[in-house]
């Protein structure tokens, strides 16, 4: 029997070596999977963009890049918004474009200062729709405390865009209290989420009207700096890392952080806040809310001694009342995210290969 288990060990070793290698981009064409935030996206980013641009700030793979100018630490981020439909319960593309970018700054530990807005408009777009989205951007910027200081406009032929696309770029000043790094996680650290999960992605799926389902679910889009601000006050240097749980959901964020820090994570499914409407829709569609996008919910990793303080501070922030401690970082097995299911079993919560596709069986 000894050589049998030797062979098994050897094969597991080969797989581990293959998995630890940097993702390579080897596809012939771009498919929708490359935009889904899972393994295919990772191969594109880590296998093509990062090596080609070869910049240390980019290589960190944070939500924003950090730039040091004469001792002032700035965070810079950019994001494109192609959501369909343009308006959905709880928000719209304009509001999303502002909040998405200021949130990437916030979870990088930076107070948002200013953003730029570029719009790609489709020939034939209704002017009233555009006016509404411009208003939505202005309102969201005011609410987030940032100025819109630059912009660009392009128009493309009918059929070349879904009404409008919006790109925003933001700059923020890294807060002196921020000591965040994706590789700073240690065994024992607690995993917090800032609110109930899966609402944005579910609201969008239902708003498309293809499923014939109706439920009162609204996008959670909101600016996160106020929540990040109180977390710094509550946990200071004991706050290890923050991540905006957008595309790919909380599960993808946890996998990225576990890999970056070489720790394991153990999540208690029972403690994950999911509204019953979201749970019901996900149940019908055969999709796990842990993989569904959020637009106003982040993951915070906090040293154990600061976890209670951080959670109490978060819950006092409007929109974060449902914040929860959902699990713990562990030593073994490094890079893996495990879940204790509400039923009582334990399983692996892996990265997505592509879009979460509904199952037939």
């Amino acid at each position, binding site marked *: 029997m000894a050589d049998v288990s030797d062979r098994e060990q050897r094969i597991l070793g*080969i*797989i581990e070596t293959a998995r630890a290698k940097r993702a390579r981009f080897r596809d012939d064409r771009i498919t929708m*999977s490359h935009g889904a935030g899972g393994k295919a996206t990772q191969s594109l980013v880590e296998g093509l963009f990062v090596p080609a641009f070869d910049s240390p700030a980019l290589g960190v793979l944070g939500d924003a890049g950090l730039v040091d100018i004469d001792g002032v630490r700035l965070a810079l981020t950019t994001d494109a918004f192609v959501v369909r439909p343009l308006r959905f319960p709880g928000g719209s593309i304009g509001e999303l474009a502002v909040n998405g970018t200021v949130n990437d700054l916030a979870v990088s530990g930076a107070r948002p200062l200013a953003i730029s807005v570029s719009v790609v408009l489709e020939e034939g777009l209704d002017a009233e729709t555009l006016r509404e989205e411009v208003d939505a951007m202005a309102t969201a910027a005011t609410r987030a405390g940032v100025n819109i200081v630059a912009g660009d406009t392009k128009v493309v032929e009918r059929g070349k865009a879904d009404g409008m696309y919006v790109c925003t770029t933001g700059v923020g000043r890294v807060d002196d209290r921020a000591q965040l790094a994706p590789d700073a996680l240690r065994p024992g650290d607690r995993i917090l989420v800032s609110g109930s999960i899966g609402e944005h992605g579910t609201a969008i799926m239902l708003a498309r009207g293809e499923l014939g389902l109706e439920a009162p679910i609204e996008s959670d889009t909101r600016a996160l700096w106020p929540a990040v601000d109180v977390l710094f006050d509550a946990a200071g240097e004991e706050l290890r890392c923050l991540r905006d749980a957008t595309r790919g959901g909380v599960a993808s964020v946890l996998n990225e952080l576990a890999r970056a820090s070489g720790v394991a994570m153990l999540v208690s499914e029972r403690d994950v806040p999911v509204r019953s409407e979201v749970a019901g829709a996900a149940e019908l569609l055969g999709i796990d809310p842990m993989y569904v996008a959020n637009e106003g919910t982040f993951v915070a990793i906090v040293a154990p001694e600061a976890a209670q303080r951080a959670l109490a501070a978060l819950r006092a922030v409007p929109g974060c009342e449902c914040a929860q401690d959902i699990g713990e970082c562990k030593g073994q097995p490094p890079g893996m995210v495990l879940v204790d299911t509400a039923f009582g079993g334990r399983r692996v919560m892996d990265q997505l290969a592509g879009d979460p596709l*509904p*199952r*037939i*069986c």
Partner: protein
Amino acid sequence: MRYVDEFRDPELGRALAGEILATVEPGRHYKLMEVCGGHTHSIYKYGVDDLLPANVELVHGPGCPVCVIPMGRVDDGIALAHEAGVIFTCFGDMMRVPGSHGTLLEAKAQGADVRMVYSPLDALRIAKANPEREVVFFAIGFETTAPSTALTLKRARAEGVANFSCMCNHVTIVPPLRALLDSPDLRLDGFIGPGHVATVVGARPFRFIPADYGRPLVIAGFEPLDLLQAIHMILRQLADGRCEVENQYTRVVPDEGNPRALAVMAEVFALRPHFEWRGLGFISQSALRLSDAYADLDAEQRFGVPGVRVADPKACQCGEVLKGVIKPWECKVFGTACTPDHAIGTCMVSPEGACAAYYNYGRFAREREVV
């Protein structure tokens, strides 16, 4: 969630796990196969296997309808999708299954009009909305989904939707089970029977398993408590020296199945003489085609597909993995030619297949005590 949480009660789960532990003989190793991909999914989702004693092993069976579609059929589907004017429709999880030159998702990226639908009726709706286009529905699944395809074809006929057709890949559950059971090296002690399929076909078609092959089968539902109870019922049979078909899923599955669904299927479909299964090879009378009465709605006849058979690489040992003869890592191509990114056999195609699970989580299984 009402009517759902009741079947996921952790207290009852622990109690059942205790009863299972009390039923097994220490020192005896039990291999049970869950036939249906839906069961495999539930087992992973809830961590059901984690609640079982170490000597009760679950083997994931051939019942994932997307994973068993061979490369040649995917290639045929892609060829159809590339036909001028065709809108090609299929279920979402079919889109990532590899043919010999890529997936339907990649065909879509190359310009084919491939659309995901949630029901064959959605495909019919697309056909009615696009009368100038040909709409093909790529039908897959066991007896569970075949009635809905049949009803859609009947409606297409009744409403005279001339631009709708169906590429039929429906398969039946009994022949692959018989093929597995016929192999002399089978190492399975019992079966968790497919609850959804049984809703349609009833319990009777499974009686040959205890009668001819001496293995118990318990038809099970898809909630974690259903699965634990079914496993307990199988182990109980083994302990009592009984061997029969039992029905755990009585709240849904009648013994005689659904006669109306069976009648519709008999009208719209006919048995194919043989059909190729990914990783299992050709199995006779294991799949359905459209009956002669519905031949005009058969996409394979309307368009003529290449029909080129793409052989699974010879080294692929999915059959042995499914029979429980070898472990995934003992397969010659495991982890080298066959990986989740470039899957060859059915066990690697599905993320819940035995090989994919072992590839991704084997290390976890080895180290789980450490956590």
